[in-house]
């Protein structure tokens, strides 16, 4: 059993995949708690779809090395745009986000559909390819992880206040729009860091699922963050190992990114089930 969890990672490409997945698990776990507190899952989804045409354009312009810069430009623009939309408070935010995310996504699909390798490329951008991660990708993810750590530590109390009681934060003199810009940019950077490994669609699960499971397990914010980081990392490890064992050992091809997501969702389902059972027993 232990073999299954350790042996696959002797191979260099699997070692790189593991390092990347562990970094993303920790990063998404921590940032995901804020996404959960602010109920920003839909905004995060909008960012992931808006990033998609950036990924495609980057790839068309300069191949694999263009993906992260392309995604970055789109993500930063999307974060700024969404912050501005929220700040005007005149437009229906939900509907506007839905219109923007589908529009951007359609642009991405049209761009990529003009390629010969349409299906293969589309799959890679949507669902990632963690097994072909290179050192540059790991450096990008590590840099975003360090930055996210600094932001969450440095502005933790202000972001907490903004999430809990925005009206009071404004009344005390905080600029809500500035704080929102910071958190939206952070979410956008997480999406960019995740593009290569898990793709633009699956990153939403990496953000939301560990945090949601952690929230079920604790009422204390500090504990929730710690548990979400741990769940994200362990889920990433187990998912990679499972996908490798199934593909190599049993000739059952399981996509690595999707397997990580399913492991996380399975954990969430177990926690929900456990709590429901406990409630029934208590009655």
């Amino acid at each position: 059993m232990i073999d299954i969890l350790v042996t696959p990672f002797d191979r260099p490409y699997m070692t790189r995949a593991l390092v990347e997945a562990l970094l993303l698990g920790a990063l998404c776990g921590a940032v995901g708690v804020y996404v959960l507190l602010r109920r920003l899952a839909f905004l995060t989804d909008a960012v992931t779809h808006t990033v998609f045409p950036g990924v495609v354009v980057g790839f068309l312009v300069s191949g694999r090395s263009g993906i992260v810069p392309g995604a970055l430009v789109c993500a930063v623009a999307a974060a700024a745009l969404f912050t501005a939309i929220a700040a005007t408070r005149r437009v229906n935010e939900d509907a506007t986000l839905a219109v923007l995310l589908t529009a951007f996504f359609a642009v991405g699909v049209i761009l990529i559909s003009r390629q010969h390798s349409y299906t293969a490329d589309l799959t890679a951008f949507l669902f990632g390819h963690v097994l072909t991660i290179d050192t540059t990708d790991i450096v990008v993810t590590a840099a975003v992880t360090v930055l996210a750590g600094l932001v969450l530590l440095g502005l933790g109390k202000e972001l907490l206040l903004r999430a809990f009681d925005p009206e009071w934060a404004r009344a005390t003199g905080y600029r809500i729009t500035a704080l929102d810009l910071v958190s939206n940019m952070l979410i956008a950077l997480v999406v960019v860091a995740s593009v290569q490994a898990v793709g633009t669609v699956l990153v939403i699960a990496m953000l939301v699922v560990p945090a949601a499971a952690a929230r079920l397990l604790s009422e204390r914010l500090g504990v929730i963050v710690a548990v979400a980081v741990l769940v994200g990392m362990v889920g990433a490890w187990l998912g990679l190992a499972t996908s490798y064992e199934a593909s190599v050992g049993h000739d059952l091809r399981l996509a690595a990114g999707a397997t990580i997501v399913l492991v996380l969702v399975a954990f969430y389902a177990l926690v929900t089930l456990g709590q429901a059972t406990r409630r029934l027993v208590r009655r």
Partner: protein
Amino acid sequence: MSRPAAIVFDQASIAYGRVPALEQVHGTVRRGEIVALVGPNGAGKSTLIKALLGLVPVASGSITVLGQAPAQARRLVAYVPQADTLDPDFPISVAQVVLMGRYRRIGWLRPPGRADRDAAAEALAAVGLAHRAADRFGTLSGGQRQRVLLARAIAAQPEALLLDEPFNGVDAVSQEALLDTIKTLAAGGAAVVVSTHDLGLAQLTCDGICLLNRHQFGFGPPADVLTPDLLRAAYGGAALELGDRGLIVARS
């Protein structure tokens, strides 16, 4: 000798865009005074509090808070919102909520220090909830949550305190605790403005009354403002005549 003025309304009118919300508010709240904002639903009580916080602009006339424009005085002013506007599922402890009152003093990028935790603990003790510090905010009763929000305001050591309907749906014990704390703060020299539906409570506990319904009907000592004529004028159809025995004001 009268105490120094803390909040001065000078023919202040407030509008949302072109729609006037409240007109011609004129009067003074002195340090150490508790003034109640009284009027029917939609009278503009919450709007006036928002204007005192600099969250809605004054369209004409002026409002001066501690000698400054409202938005400039925010650091000296503490606000107590209605507790039921906050998410009861939010994973935050009572102590963490009260500590938020210290954030402006702590400043950016710094964690709260020992002095901040002590001030927060002291504020929580002042509202009688020191024993609930570790509990999640959402597990408290409505009245207790309101007291926690008052403690958060006190932790900021404000010179002016603004409360929006703090007694709505609050149990007797919590109401008593809220009143005691507010009186203590006023006795220490803070100016207090509190909006309320409860005319009896306003009459008994406040030094001044500002009677509103879209515009000001009276501003002064309770005996001068809470008269049948002024209440009838401000409440209109919500006032119930009891022949020559007097007048009852319905809540809405």
